[in-house]
């Protein structure tokens, strides 16, 4: 089994690569995990992971700048192969991003990426640090992971989130002066707003679940 973590110039991917390799070992998944910016390599992957940090538009433009890469990702998804978006990589799954200016997303998860507006004005933006997850619908990615206020924590750093139009696409939220979208999923697609590669126990478990996921 091969996993391609897509490198399109959006931040460091070393820790993501190492986290996926470690989760693969711990979950008994054999195969290659590699970072690639080459569409031909990505085309052969069984699973695609799309990370992303920074602004929505910069990420979309960075991806477009690699000729053929978006097409490979769309074909991968159309072929019902597993896809995981992380942080802005997850946000790109939406219809539109509204950070700075309107930017078109992939249109896989109905809804827009909008600024977080906590009801408590004392809460700081970015939403930065460790938060627990509130489960909305059960999903194989969360198998064996303790959820709820006494559950495990995930590491977030973001000022915008994916306001999903269809409630059923939301797998989990976090509470930050109101619900913040933490995990979305539909069919063979999944995305996490938090960074599983930085989320220690919860993160490695979720990555392991993704590697074993048979959507």
């Amino acid at each position, binding site marked *: 089994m091969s996993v391609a973590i897509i490198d399109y110039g959006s931040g460091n991917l*070393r820790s993501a690569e190492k986290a996926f390799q470690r989760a693969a070992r711990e979950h008994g998944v054999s195969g290659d995990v590699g970072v690639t910016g080459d569409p031909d390599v990505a085309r052969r992957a069984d699973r695609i992971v799309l990370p992303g940090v920074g602004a929505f538009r910069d990420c979309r433009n960075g991806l477009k700048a690699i000729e053929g890469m978006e097409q490979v990702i769309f074909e991968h998804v159309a072929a019902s192969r597993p896809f995981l978006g992380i942080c802005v990589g997850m946000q790109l799954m939406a219809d539109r991003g509204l950070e700075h200016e309107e930017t078109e997303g992939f249109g896989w998860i109905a809804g827009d990426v909008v600024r977080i507006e906590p009801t408590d004005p004392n809460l700081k933006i970015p939403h930065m640090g460790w938060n627990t997850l509130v489960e909305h619908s059960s999903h194989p990615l969360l198998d064996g992971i303790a959820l709820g206020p006494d559950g495990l924590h995930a590491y977030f750093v973001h000022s915008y989130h994916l306001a999903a139009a269809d409630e059923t696409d939301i797998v989990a939220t976090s509470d930050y002066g109101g619900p913040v979208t933490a995990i979305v999923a539909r069919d063979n697609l999944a995305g996490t707003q938090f960074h599983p590669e930085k989320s220690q126990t919860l993160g490695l478990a979720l990555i392991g679940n993704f590697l074993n996921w048979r959507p």
Partner: protein
Amino acid sequence: MLKARVIPCLDVKDGRVVKGVNFVDLRDAGDPVEIAKAYDAAGADELCFLDITASHENRGIIFDVVSQTAEQCFMPLTVGGGVRTVDDIRRLLLAGADKVSINTAAVRDRQFVRAAAEKFGSQCIVVAIDAKKVSKAGAPDKWEIFTHGGRTPTGIDAIEFAEEVVDLGAGEILLTSMDRDGTGNGFDIALTRAISDAVPVPVIASGGVGNLDHMAEGIVDGGATAVLAASIFHFGTYTIAEAKQHMAERGVAVRLD
């Protein structure tokens, strides 16, 4: 809910941790990578490296330290010290840092903060502010930015500076009281509160932690969302778990997994 973060900070010089760490049996108490792994296992919420390498020819060592740490620790890592150019930031992020802290360069040129945030996103740009109280007793509180380890005054008001760098794109403020740093007398709570109230981004309180009450006070009274400490952890006075347990008893929500 979001938890208050506890962040140990390591001073790294020429690739070695200054003073070392003795809270746990380490094969090499001066190896930053090994110490990072120990803090990772101990439940630290983030880790901070401050590179204090002076010689130009050894400046590159930190990149190796960061990349080895990132390969072995699945926790957020902030790196500061001597960050002067967009290329310095790029190299640290590519090595595996999640956030980069800018200090003197932001004081010298505020537009550097804007350039850095536009290039890499606010989420990874921390501005480190070293402030010292300059108001006389009885007068309204006033703090000024100091550089060079608190030796050089700049005449810049700390609160105004914090507001300005956040407007320019800083995603977090690492606030150190130079009056309290190294004293063990606790954070400058009035300073922490003043900066936390002035900016919409997270503030990390730093400088002065001597006991566990101090850590809770930084959050409860100072309004910080994270507390940074060095010696109380490195010398084994308290463990990360003890710090968090105490904070929890004081009503501060912390991550205990």
